[in-house]
């Protein structure tokens, strides 16, 4: 007969562990009825690209979700030498549709949960509107400051994929490393405690930053990247013409990341840059449009009177 293990979860300690901070946010948003998702399994520049944000922002159905998304920003790589900049880092995304009343108070409660006391720290909502021409999307909101540091982007989505958001979703994007550095009181991201058992952020990611920075800036085969871009673009069109917009959207995300890599390699001229951005934008918008078009009959059936 096998032994029976009993397990009592230990109390979270966001002030001493990066992962406890994440788990606390999961607990908090789970308690608010959010679906706790796992990261999208593709390379992307921001959590907003996750379909749980972009595509779910369309349509009339309520949707509440929270997840961590690893973000890749090849040009931000600093070979592990800059204490504040990384080419790979984490965003914590919360999407609440429709945006609930008192969403700011909810957000502030989540900060308290991870150990930020707004009477000890100066928390401010400073105008910062968001626009992503790539996604045909924009919203109004703020960057949230904690003692002068931007810790969260807070946006009310107004349009996505060129369509009005009906209803509007509220999006919160926490910069996890920044928040953790603040809460743990460290000046160098690599000094963050990842867990309570002596593993640091540097133990997990420093070597990765060194190698990936080198690859992003110096090594990546640009001919292969140009080829990848073209293939992603073609595959996106293929998926679109076969009415599988979710698959098309993935290819648009892929093309967007490959474009970022080409930028980091410095092989795209200013003139070409605009043209490539236009191509990515076309893919992303076409995918969003196709998704919305495909879903609209279901949405209209469920919500009589609702129109795209």
């Amino acid at each position, binding site marked *: 007969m096998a032994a029976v293990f009993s397990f009592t979860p230990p109390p979270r300690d966001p002030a001493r562990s990066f992962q406890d901070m994440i788990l606390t946010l999961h607990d908090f948003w789970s308690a608010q009825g959010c679906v706790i998702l796992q990261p999208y399994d593709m390379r992307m520049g921001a959590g907003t690209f996750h379909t749980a944000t972009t595509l779910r922002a369309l349509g*009339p159905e309520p949707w509440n979700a929270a997840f961590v998304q690893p973000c890749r920003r090849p040009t931000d790589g600093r070979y592990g030498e*800059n*204490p*504040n900049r990384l080419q790979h880092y984490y965003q914590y995304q919360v999407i609440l549709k*429709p*945006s*609930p*009343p008192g969403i*700011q108070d909810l957000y*502030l409660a989540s900060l308290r949960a991870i150990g930020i006391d*707004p*009477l*000890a*720290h*100066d*928390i*401010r*909502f*400073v*105008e910062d*509107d968001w626009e992503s021409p790539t996604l045909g999307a924009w*919203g*109004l*909101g*703020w960057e949230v400051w*904690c*003692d*002068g*540091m931007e810790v969260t982007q807070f946006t*009310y989505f*107004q349009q996505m994929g060129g369509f*009005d*958001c*009906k*209803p*509007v979703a*509220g999006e919160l994007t926490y910069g996890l490393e920044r928040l953790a550095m*603040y809460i743990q009181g460290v*000046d160098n991201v690599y000094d963050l405690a990842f867990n309570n058992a002596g593993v640091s952020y540097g133990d997990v990611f420093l070597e990765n930053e060194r190698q990936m920075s080198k690859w992003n800036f110096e090594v990546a085969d640009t001919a292969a990247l140009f080829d990848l871009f073209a293939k992603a673009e073609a595959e996106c069109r293929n998926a679109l013409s076969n009415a599988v917009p979710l698959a098309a959207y993935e290819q648009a995300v892929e093309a967007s990341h490959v474009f970022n890599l080409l930028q980091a390699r410095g092989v795209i*001229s*200013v*003139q070409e840059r605009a043209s490539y951005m236009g191509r990515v934008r076309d893919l992303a918008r076409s995918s969003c449009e196709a998704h919305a078009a495909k879903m609209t009959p279901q949405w209209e059936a469920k*919500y009589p009177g*609702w129109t795209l």
Partner: protein
Amino acid sequence: MGSEISGVDAVSDFLLELRSEEIPARMQAGARAELGKLFRRELDAAGVAVPDITIWSTPRRLALIARGLPLATDAVIEEAKGPPEGAPDAAIEGFCRKAGVAREALVLRDVKGRLTYFAVIEQPGRAMADVLAAAIPVIVRDFGWPKSMRWGAASIATDSLRWVRPLSGIAALLNDQVVACAVDGIVSGRETFGHRFHHVGAISIGGADDYAAKLRAAHVIVDHEERAAIIRDGAAKVAADAGLTLVPDEGLVIENAGLTEWPVTLLGRFDEAFLDVPPEVIQLTARVNQKYFVCEDAAKDSGGKLANAFICTANISPRDMDVVIDGNRKVLAARLSDAKFFWEQDQKKTLGDHAKRLERITFHEKLGTVADKVERVAKLARWLCEEGIVGGDPALAEQAARLCKADLVTAMVGEFPELQGLMGGYYATKEGLPREVSDAIRDHYKPVGQGDDVPTAPVTVAVSLADKLDTIFEFFSIGEKPTGSKDPYALRRQAIGSNALILKNELSLSIFDSLIAHGASLLRPAAIADDEINFQLYLAAKNRATQRDERLNPEHLIYAGMLKLSAELIHLFGTRIQHQLKAEGKRTDFIEAALYSRCDTVLSLYRTANALQDFLTTDDGANLLAGYKRAANILKKEDWHGIEGEISQTGEEDPLAMVDDPDLAPVIAAKMAERHAAAEHLSYTPEPAEQTLIDALATAAPRAAEAVQAERFGDAMAALATLRAPIDQFFEEVIVNDADANKRTARLALLARFRDAVHRVADFSRIEG
């Protein structure tokens, strides 16, 4: 007008508070104005005079207090005019329905002798609370924000309420009574909320009188001006306490007042090592990204050296100030280390190396890259010096011009575009380039606006002017000219900058010659549409080209286009001077008169205008102007078209007269002389006054023309002054409209020659009085 409603003389105070999530700081002043405007509009529509309004804002609320409102509006009697007596019944009944009165209630009044039905409609007075309850939702719905949004469950419909950020509550009190209304589910009440963190729970407001005090007790200073004063004084005080001097920044004061309800100024220090970075960079990083003030060393001998200190404005009274200061210090340190990284990284390459990357930046899709522009500017800057128009060394001017845009591709300017020029200047100095070159790179965007310093260092002047002229010439050459309110490439501002450089440094710059020197890109055929080309101009240009250089023959058309272009350009420059004079409240007609002369340089335009002003305030000037106007009127009245009908009425319209070019002068003069020879040969004996004028003109006209040519405008005026007595005498003693057709024609021709002689100096018809 009487009213049945009692208490109409009683007055009341009204408080309106519109709460929302954080309103962007930059929109708050506009929102206050909008609230006042809409409130007045609504009260006006209800017939209520608005006595006294106070409007306040914080990031989370707009508040309006109106004092001395009547408790009710006056009753109003309106009369509506209907059909005349005896009109068909259907018409009369229709009128009654429309006016909402019974037929028996109609009254008959006399309208121009005809009895006509009138409906007398009494609008009873309305309670002020009702007026306000109706006005509030209208104000909220009509409110104009620079950007507004939808939110929440209601936003499933696109016509849901819009506000700058979610509107969260409305407090509305008339004296101590709630003005009951609702907007999209938000119901008015007497509750408000205090500071986001320092006060928990709702506050009950008694009315307009206790509103500000109750909020203050809840850590909210609702008066934005009071908050601005707290920040202004607080920042100065914490600086002084640290032995430093605050660098005042009123824009930052207002912005911080718009970001806080309970401002607290705190001073922190950053690592002195960052002071290696230029002070402008530190100040910009602190101000733009973090909204911090900076300080200077207070010591007298420090020369305003930036101190390693910043002042932030918190929105709380923190438990421990050091925690907040330290957090802010870290953020600033991270930003400054980025700036320091850029500063050091940029210096690893020379400006010359940076400049190579300008080939990758498009200046304008039709005008090539920034590198192309730099090439043109370098050529023009060199030419300005070689021709002696600007006194600088041609080689240095060319060198500076080639490097002046290089900082646009540096990391620092990429991060802080406002530092263009300045960073180039710093990098040039670090590189050890000559002082003239680094100064020119730094200052070549100047003057940026009215009141900005106008460069005087010759190399700087050459680069700055060449840069501006190139932009203007190039955009004009592709037909992108400012029209009306549209000036997308800010060419008028470039013209204002050019004027300032030219006038301050007294540069004798011919617009036509600089166009030729600039040349190359204007050889674009598209620059000249066929319809723009006047045949006469073409001929003149052909003459010019032939005289100058045979090889230019194939490009006659382009020369013709350039003549036309230079006329348009001088008009652009001249009208900017006119606008500037107008803004200063000065007369603009002198410059206008000069503009319609044939000046080809901005300087001569300006000097002509000044000489005109001096001359026309003299007795001779005033009388000559009177004589000129009289001559011009006669010619106009007689519809005089000249001896051959081809000498046009004013110099400006004669294509030949427009060719103001020393090389062509003999050609033009010969043609003109030919035209006039016939007219000057008289078939009768002139009267003495007539002969006097003929003689005076024969002397004065060439003298004036010669003086204009030599840019001796005072002398030109003096030459014109000699005509004053003869023209007066002529009008006194000679009858122009003589019965003898020969005499009449000859005398009109004489007046035309007099007028034309005046026009060679300036278009006196543009001068008032």
